[in-house]
């Protein structure tokens, strides 16, 4: 009897756990049923999938308060607390995940490149393989709309803004001196090698409150978060040598990249228009150290470069050439930490130090200057949910500039300044739905040198109108302290200001992207002065004004033609400004009204080669002809440059690269330099400013030696 009793008891325990029915319906935000959602009670085996009407029903032995989990691809997983006893015929709504590929993104003003970008217009490899870019990040960006090709300068000019209106950031921290040193009419290059960066974001306006001290544009470069493998890269080029190496151990990795560039042999073979005593040479090195913690990542980036050249510079005002002998040393250090803590908090902190030293001999006069600049930053970000994120933080910029001018057997003039800028910013990212997102922010900054405080609001929103198309709008107020040339003589100035209004349409589908953007930019408080060139006794003021408006169009297609990728950029700009020593509001000389770039890359499998063609065209640029009464009335002829590149994959690890710029040999004219005073016939003479050479040839051999290959070779032995 006892046994039977015990046995019965078992049965009751095992089967008699009163079974409860849980049922309901799974719906989306529009109350349409979701078919095939996975529904279960957390921690049990009890669950089912929803049927074609979104209904579900299952039995469970669980009791009391439980967590009901409902998951479905591309939707946010719902965890609903329920009481099993009363959970019948309940309806549950799933929200579409805003982390999916087809969610709306704020795109106004911004071009993203790299692996984290969802709609990537440029890939890191594009920098290297775009014909004519010659491995220069800035040159590759000049194939995007909104930029100007200013061949005699080489820097980034964005939407009617001067080159120094663009700030460069590495891992969120400012780089005070992003370009190599140069002299008049010899183009410079960006200091950064594209190989150490995994992604970049280039904004032509309307950017986040996180970034300040930039009137026109920001270029954000991100170093690689992790080294993928140990390897060594060797490059042999007609213009120099390069060596790079990456090591990994434990949670650490270290990459370095060094280059020695010497243009002397090249210029022996291909004579230049410029008269060099000692062609450009430079020794540069960059390194990145990374250490990953369980919840964070520390990065240290350091770059050093020493360059020098000696040139006899022509000027219409001097019968003799002016000798410019320049030595530049530049050091840049950037360290940052990014980590997660607590519940959905993210911390970012970083600091940079940059030191630049120039020694310039101008005939017998000597100029020596040095700039110390630092940037400290702290940013916190809290994700309240996938849909609401708030970030806030502070910036501190320190700049100390000193210059000494020593005239031959004459006096010494000193100038310089110390500026500290403290800023706070905050920004909220809100997704109202998968289709509608808003970003609101503000930045307040105080400059102790200029004794001014400014508040800059920023706002952007994006709305998805169809499966593949969306509109974005951005507004922002931007300020920037006047440039070094002005501040060293005048600390009584105010910051220059600009307002941006941008409307963007983007359509992106299956490896094809179309974007069109119209913008209006209103400049105020631009610096003016009353002398031929800036000097210690110039009278400076902030009465300058200006505007820029235009249309930028971009089309990239990696699909239509097999093995061919191409993109087309077109920009139209109408801009005028009255700044510097201008006598009227006119279009400045670095602006061409129409620019068109076509870049294409064709992979030919049979030849294991990638052939690339880039054509850049822009209409003529204004120049001032003192022989005419109207200021800035001249126009140069149009500019055209057709470049070709050919990369041949000898093996996976050996690449031979050949490129030539301006294949057609177009005689491009950048502008004219006029004499300060008329000749005996009362005419101002002029000198044509042309590229230092019409064409540039480049041959390089790139060899990667990696662990994996080594292992294979070992196996072969």
């Amino acid at each position, binding site marked *: 009897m006892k046994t039977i009793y015990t046995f019965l008891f078992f049965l009751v325990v095992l089967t008699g756990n009163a079974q409860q029915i849980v049922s309901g319906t799974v719906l989306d935000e529009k109350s349409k049923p979701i078919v095939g959602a*996975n529904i279960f009670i957390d921690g049990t*085996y009890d*669950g089912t999938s929803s049927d074609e009407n979104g209904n579900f029903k299952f039995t469970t032995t669980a009791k009391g308060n439980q967590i009901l989990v409902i998951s479905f691809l591309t939707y946010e997983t719902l965890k609903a607390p329920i009481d099993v006893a009363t959970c019948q015929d309940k309806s549950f709504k799933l929200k579409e995940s805003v982390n999916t590929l087809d969610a709306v993104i704020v795109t106004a003003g911004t071009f993203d490149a790299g692996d984290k970008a969802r709609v990537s217009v440029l890939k890191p490899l594009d920098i290297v393989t775009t014909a004519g870019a010659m491995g220069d990040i800035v040159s590759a960006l000049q194939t995007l709309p909104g930029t100007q090709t200013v061949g005699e300068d080489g820097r980034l000019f964005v939407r009617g803004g001067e080159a120094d209106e663009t700030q460069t950031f590495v891992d969120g921290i400012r780089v005070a001196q992003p370009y190599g040193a140069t002299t008049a009419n010899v183009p410079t290059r960006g200091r950064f090698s594209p190989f150490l960066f995994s992604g970049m974001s280039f904004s032509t306006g309307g950017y986040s409150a996180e970034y300040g001290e930039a009137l026109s544009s920001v270029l954000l470069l991100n170093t690689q978060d992790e080294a993928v*493998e140990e390897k060594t890269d060797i490059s042999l080029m007609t213009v120099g040598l390069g060596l790079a190496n990456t090591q990994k151990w434990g949670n650490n990795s270290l990459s370095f990249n060094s280059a020695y560039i010497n243009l002397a042999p090249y210029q022996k073979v291909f004579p230049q228009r410029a008269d060099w005593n000692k062609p450009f040479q430079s020794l540069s090195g960059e390194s990145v150290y990374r250490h990953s913690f369980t919840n964070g990542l520390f990065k240290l980036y350091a770059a050093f470069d020493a360059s020098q050249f000696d040139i006899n510079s022509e000027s219409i005002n001097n019968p003799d050439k002016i000798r410019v002998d320049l030595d530049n040393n530049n050091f840049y250090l950037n360290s940052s930490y990014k980590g997660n803590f607590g519940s959905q908090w993210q911390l970012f902190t970083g600091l940079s130090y940059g030191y630049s030293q120039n020694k310039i001999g101008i005939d017998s006069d000597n100029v020596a200057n040095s700039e110390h600049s630092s940037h400290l930053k702290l940013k916190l970000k809290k994700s309240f949910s996938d849909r609401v994120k708030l970030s806030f933080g502070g910036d501190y910029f320190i700049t100390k500039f000193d210059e000494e001018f020593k005239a031959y057997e004459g006096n010494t003039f000193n100038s310089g300044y110390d500026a500290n800028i403290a800023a706070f910013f905050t920004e909220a990212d809100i997704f109202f739905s998968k289709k509608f997102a808003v970003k609101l922010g503000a930045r307040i900054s105080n400059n102790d040198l200029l004794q001014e405080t400014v508040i800059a609001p920023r706002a952007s929103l994006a709305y998805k109108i169809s499966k593949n198309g969306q509109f974005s709008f951005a507004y922002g107020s931007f300020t920037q302290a006047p440039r070094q040339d002005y501040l060293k003589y005048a600390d009584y100035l105010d910051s220059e200001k600009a307002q941006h209004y941008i409307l963007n349409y983007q359509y992106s589908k299956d490896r094809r992207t179309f974007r069109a953007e119209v913008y209006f930019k209103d400049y105020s408080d631009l610096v003016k002065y009353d002398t031929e060139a800036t000097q210690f006794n110039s009278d400076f003021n902030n009465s300058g004004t200006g505007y820029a408006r235009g249309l930028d169009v971009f089309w990239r297609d990696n699909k239509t033609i097999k093995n061919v990728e191409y993109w087309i950029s077109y920009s139209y700009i109408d801009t005028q400004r009255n700044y510097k020593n201008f006598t009227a509001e006119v279009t400045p000389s670095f602006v061409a009204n129409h620019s068109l770039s076509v870049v294409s890359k064709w992979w030919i499998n049979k030849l294991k080669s990638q052939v690339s063609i880039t054509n850049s065209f822009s209409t003529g640029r204004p120049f001032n002809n003192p022989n005419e009464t109207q200021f800035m009335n001249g126009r140069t002829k149009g500019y055209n440059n057709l470049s070709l590149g050919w990369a041949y994959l000898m093996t996976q690890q050996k690449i031979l690269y050949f490129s030539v710029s301006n294949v057609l040999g177009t005689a491009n004219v950048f502008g004219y330099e006029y004499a300060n005073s008329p000749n005996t016939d009362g005419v101002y003479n002029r000198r044509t400013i042309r590229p230092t050479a019409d064409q540039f040839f480049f041959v390089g051999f790139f060899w990667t030696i990696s662990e994996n290959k080594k292992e294979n070779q070992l196996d072969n032995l």
Partner: protein
Amino acid sequence: MTKIITTIALFVCSLLSAQTQFEQGMGRSLGLWGEGKAQEASDLMERISAAEKTNWLPNYYVALINTTEAFKPANKAKVAALLEKAQNAQDAATMISPNNPELMVMQAMIYTAMIVQDPMVNGMKYSPKVMELYTKARIIAPENPRVVFSKADFEMGGAQWTGADVKKLCEEIASSIPLFERFKPETPFHPNWGLERAQQSLKNCK
């Protein structure tokens, strides 16, 4: 005494029934997958993983099923979502069982699917990672047939670009076949796939 026996018996019974429930669930899910009902199989595995928080296997199968689905041309539009699901499950499994060669193979397969999805963008980024994972896995488990085969199979896929020695890769695939035959999974639910794929690949070698 009876009480004690009853309690013990109860305890054993509940243990047994839990065991059975796991086996039943795994068996049913793998059965569903065999019938081509990938989503239902994945859903069931997901439910098992929610109940068996210390067992890496259900998460492993969520990753395996969704990655396998991602390779199918019919699912092209869903690839990103499938791989995200696979990656989340993979992360959960790795938390439970670190340094597991089967999970390294799984991670390598997810990366391979990403490469296949967009070779131009992901090829350069993930190929070295895949190779690193296989190399690591081979140090831990040189006799694991999936490690040996998947590594050779991956290199074979890239051979037309890398110029890798196809003959040598075929030899590696051939060497995996006796390993498959010798392989004894810990339980019937531990990974034991790959022999057919290896034989298929070997056929292509000839």
